[in-house]
């Protein structure tokens, strides 16, 4: 429990409490924080700032993630980010880039293409400017992914669903159960591959995959049916009797609201009709919201210990939002610093104030409740 992280040095009263069910941060707060960082990342290509953002997200994840299965996804997102950077580089090298440049690094033999493929180039000169530009763009995308990964490993996906309106909750449960389908299938594949070994067959190769496929699908299907039976026997989908008038109003409101949202969005995006676009959209949203609320009357469900949005949640969400706002503002005030020049090549410098703004994103590592350390729960494993 006594981990020597930042909070340990604060005064005891300010120190983050141990995480329990009662003070758990709402999943939404983590997502707002992560989306704030992601927004900030989308505003800059400065590799130093991007690196700082990844570092901030990584530090918070390391300080506040739990032992839960979803918490292990962070590493996968980092790998995905590196993969994105690599793909971006490979494309630049082999397919060329519209960017000119003077510092030729090397030349890939160019494939002569017929006239109709004008504008497409395969191979050719690769310049340092092109490579650096590709690296910057790739790093931006990778940082966005890593921010999403951070939210994924810090917030419990099932809790996020608990914040859905009542009328959508049942759908939400179905989605969660469906999502467990994938990890279970992965486990099944591992088990059946082991079983193949027991019968003296090689575990790799196309044949193995084909032979395992059917039993895996069968197993997954059987498990789904079993879960459905269990859910049914435990009262899933019990509905209350509502008067027909209410039911009809619900339908009208929901359908009308959705139509309004569609028409309003179209109005906003289309060249003409910008005048009634916004009011239509708002009216549609209100109607759809009212429809969902009324629809919630049909379900008898109640919520067990919903997450409370307290001061710590505000601080976590707010820190992400302020990083985003400050970065957008910095982008307007000093665009050069956030987008270091590629033509001509210049070394990126770390702009002081935006960097300080990014560091605000570290706040959750101090204020979010501290999950129990892994050694505490190991004895049961």
């Amino acid at each position: 429990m006594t981990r020597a992280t930042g909070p340990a040095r604060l005064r005891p009263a300010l120190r983050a409490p141990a995480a329990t069910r009662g003070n758990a941060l709402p999943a939404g707060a983590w997502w707002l924080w992560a989306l704030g960082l992601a927004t900030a990342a989308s505003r800059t290509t400065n590799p130093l700032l991007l690196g700082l953002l990844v570092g901030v997200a990584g530090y918070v994840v390391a300080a506040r993630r739990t032992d839960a299965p979803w918490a292990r996804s962070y590493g996968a997102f980092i790998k995905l980010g590196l993969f994105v950077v690599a793909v971006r580089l490979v494309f630049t090298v082999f397919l060329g880039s519209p960017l000119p440049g003077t510092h030729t690094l090397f030349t890939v033999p160019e494939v002569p293409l017929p006239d109709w493929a004008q504008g497409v180039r395969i191979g050719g000169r690769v310049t340092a400017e092109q490579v650096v530009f590709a690296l910057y763009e790739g790093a931006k995308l990778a940082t966005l992914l890593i921010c999403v990964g951070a939210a994924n490993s810090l917030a419990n996906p099932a809790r996020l669903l608990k914040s859905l309106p009542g009328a959508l909750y049942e759908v939400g449960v179905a989605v969660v159960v469906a999502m467990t389908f994938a990890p279970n299938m992965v486990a099944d594949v591992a088990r059946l591959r082991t079983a193949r070994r027991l019968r003296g067959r090689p575990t790799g190769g196309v044949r193995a995959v084909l032979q395992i496929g059917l039993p895996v699908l069968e197993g997954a299907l059987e498990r789904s049916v079993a879960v459905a039976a269990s859910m049914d026997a435990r009262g899933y989908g019990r509905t209350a009797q509502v008067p027909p008038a209410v039911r009809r109003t619900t339908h009208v409101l929901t359908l009308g609201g959705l139509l309004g949202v569609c028409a309003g969005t179209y109005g906003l995006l289309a060249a003409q009709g910008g005048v009634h676009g916004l009011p239509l959209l708002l009216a549609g949203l209100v109607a759809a919201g009212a429809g969902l609320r009324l629809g919630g009357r049909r379900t008898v469900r109640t919520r067990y210990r919903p997450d409370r949005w307290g001061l710590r949640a505000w601080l976590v969400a707010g820190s992400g939002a302020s990083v985003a706002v400050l970065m957008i503002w910095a982008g307007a005030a000093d665009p050069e610093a956030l987008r270091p020049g590629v033509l001509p090549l210049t070394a990126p410098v770390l702009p002081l104030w935006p960097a300080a703004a990014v560091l605000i994103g570290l706040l959750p590592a101090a204020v979010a409740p501290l999950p129990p350390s892994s050694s505490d729960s190991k004895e049961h494993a």
Partner: protein
Amino acid sequence: MIRFEQVSVRYDGAERPTLSGVDLTIPEGELVLAVGPSGVGKSTLLGAVSGLVPHFTGGVLSGRVVVGGRDTSTHKPRELADLVGTVGQDPLAHFVTDTVEDELAYGMESLGLAPDVMRRRVEETLDLLGLAELRDRPIATLSGGQRQRVAIGSVLTPHPRVLVLDEPTSALDPAAAEDVLAVLQRLVHDLGTTVLMAEHRLERVVQYADQVLLLPAPGAAPVLGAPADVMALSPVRPPVVDLGRLVGWDPLPLSVRDARRRAVDLRERLADVDPPERGIPAGAAPAPLPGPAAPRPGLLGRLLGRRPAPAPAPAPVAGVVTRAEGVGVRHGRVQALRGVTLSVAPGETVALMGRNGAGKSTLLSTLVGTVRPSTGSVLVGGLQPSGTPPRDMVRRVGLVPQEPRDLLYADTVAAECAAADSDAGASEGSCRALVSELLPGVPDGVHPRDLSEGQRLALALALVLTARPPLLLLDEPTRGLDYAAKARLVGVLRRLAAEGHAIVLATHDVELAAELADRVVILADGEVVADGPTRQVVVSSPAFAPQTAKILAPRQWLTVSQVRGALEGLA
């Protein structure tokens, strides 16, 4: 509380009804145990109470099932959810949410109970089932016994008046089973809950039952009565009842305590007889390795022109089939095995015991080569299992996994056997002959999924034995088997041991270990804590002693058949 009126259930495509003419009444606050051989419709009977039969499973139910005044034909399972709590055979298939506390609350949320009521009941249930320390844990990280308790807790929170449980203790180690049964006992006595449960491991549960519901044969009318009366005519019975019937006690004792009181003369009669020693049968030689069949290259191998590598010559087996020395295995942060040393001689049967998660399955996986030890060495038939290609390993060691179904891919029994013959390089028809030898009457054209548990186990065992491995490993082989199927399995394994196969079985079934094993190895936390002849290890342990040993302690009798032999010798 539960009333069946002339109930028959017939599934689509079935030749005969699974249940017929069931007519019974179960009063409130009773713990009723449904017993019978496998395949007599116990699960169907339980499903009819919760309404899952026929609303969920299909099939036709005639007659009436009334639970707490509600007719299941007009009430769907979800409308019975506040009245009946159901836990199926596999607790994992029961969970909807991902943490313990949410799971306990899920049923109440569906019923729309007020938040403060939910909170109170969750706390009460956490205490009742001893789950308070696990409340925030993800369900995926729980052990078998903990999962079973969470599953029971999750149906308890809506305060159902009827609890239906299908094999609640089969997958559990003896101590965890005791925990679960103590909870059920408390529910019946303190809350007046009506409990209806099916269980094959009668030695664990029959003493707790108020009434026993016997389904003697498929389609036969069920018998409901006092446990002692029903046990007297039941085809399935625990060792304590078997012993009682052998000696002729009346009324039959159901618990070890009752039996011990009656057994004073029996102990005197047996005072001068020594329990038979079971040693390694003399003259047992290791099963000969089949000649190395040339492996055929796969499609890719043929495309790349790969020549099959010559199979390495089998190393001579010197006295032991397998030797594991100082084996350690890590799963992530968990040290699953720590310095385990074990050697098994030909013809020897070793039982691995220990609580859920003690490392039994990991040890078997290490022996068969699917898990590579991080420290120490394992040799099976002179080879390192994890570094040897599966095709060579299969002729040295065979494992029947916990779920025999994992071994089966083909869509008929015949195709499965043909595949096994070619996998093992055995002559055609040898697997099929083994199946018929292990269990006569397994039809050729049936899909392996449609076999009964016992038939499926026999098929998986035959598939593994086709390669005639000198070392045979079984993981929890008696789960879901009735006593008849278990007795057949014991016979088969004894014969294999006599032929010189070394057998290692991981099991929670103390009766099976007592019947079969020459040696018992107890694992705890990945370490060997006891290793010795069955009698010495088992008799002194309260958790692992079989019923016969408990009744006749301090003399070291292990099984009813030993006592029967001794009594016949005296007469």
